[in-house]
């Protein structure tokens, strides 16, 4: 992309979205930081394409875009994996709450 404006606007939108979500309390800081980093790095890549090119070259990618796609894919994979582990943890916590609730309810009914 020769014209970085579109990419910069997209990065700005992501940053705005993240900040807004934190303010509304619908996004935990842990994830906010991750998304902000993604936005910052992608805009850096757009503003300084020569860095991307040289890194891609050193790593043996023929096209810088291939390098960017790989990175993007890896980040997306990492984020979804993180979400899966988090959901598993939440599932466990919900189970514990549910069983505890059932036992407390049983106690109340026996009184």
């Amino acid at each position: 992309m020769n014209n970085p404006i579109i990419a910069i606007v997209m990065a700005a939108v992501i940053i705005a979205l993240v900040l807004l979500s934190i303010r509304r309390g619908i996004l935990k800081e842990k994830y906010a930081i991750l998304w902000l980093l993604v936005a910052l790095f992608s805009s850096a890549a757009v503003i300084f394409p020569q860095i991307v090119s040289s890194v891609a070259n050193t790593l043996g990618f023929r096209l810088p875009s291939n390098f960017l796609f790989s990175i993007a894919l890896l980040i997306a994979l990492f984020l979804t994996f993180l979400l899966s582990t988090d959901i598993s943890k939440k599932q466990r916590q919900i189970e514990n709450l549910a069983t505890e609730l059932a036992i407390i309810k049983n106690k109340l009914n026996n009184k």
Partner: protein
Amino acid sequence: MTTNKGLLVVIPAFNEEIVLERTLTALLQEVSVNQVLVVNDGSTDKTSEIVKTKNIQLLELPFNLGVGAAMRAGFQFALENGFEKVIQFDADLQHQPKYIEEIVTQLDNFDVVVGSRFAGKSNYRVSFVRNLAMGLLKDSVSRHIGKKMTDVTSGFRGANSKAIPIFAEKYPSEYLADTVESLILAHDQGLSITEIPVTMQERQGGVPSQNIFRSTLYLFRSLLVIIATLTIRAKKGK
């Protein structure tokens, strides 16, 4: 009538209104009414009402969590109320109440007792794929705990006062893992395990879970359980 004090029979039940009444009636000929606990695993039918009419202890989970989590609730209940032995019993009367006494007796010598459908006198038959999965599971578990097991997926089992606190905290809730992984867990926590032969009855109702698609899925999950629990835990144990 078994007069064993401190025994609790836990029945995980998910939408079992058709069979539960009959199961409870049969069960109550073997144990007394305050020795039974039904864990209603988020049923949307009259499961809870049936339990209440019988004056049996009831735990109501707010939504369906699966047999493993329901059993964990049962173990927690047993722990809090000072029960010394817990027997898991199926709501659809596949398990026969007459074996309860033998499991209870064995629990004096072993911490976990499994009612095996394949040890000796049983004529229990399953499909080829399921048989393969069960074979893989039992071989892996047998190797891990260093004792020949013939049926590691049986849901008819007992735990004593040494096993109850461990199961109350850690009983696995994932489908399939609840039976298999709990044995691995028991072994790794230093509990002793044994089997007694039992025969199953035909299901008295409810939906059986045997078609080729589900059996294949079952096989894949078994492999996953073997890879996930056995390899990792084996390393941890050393």
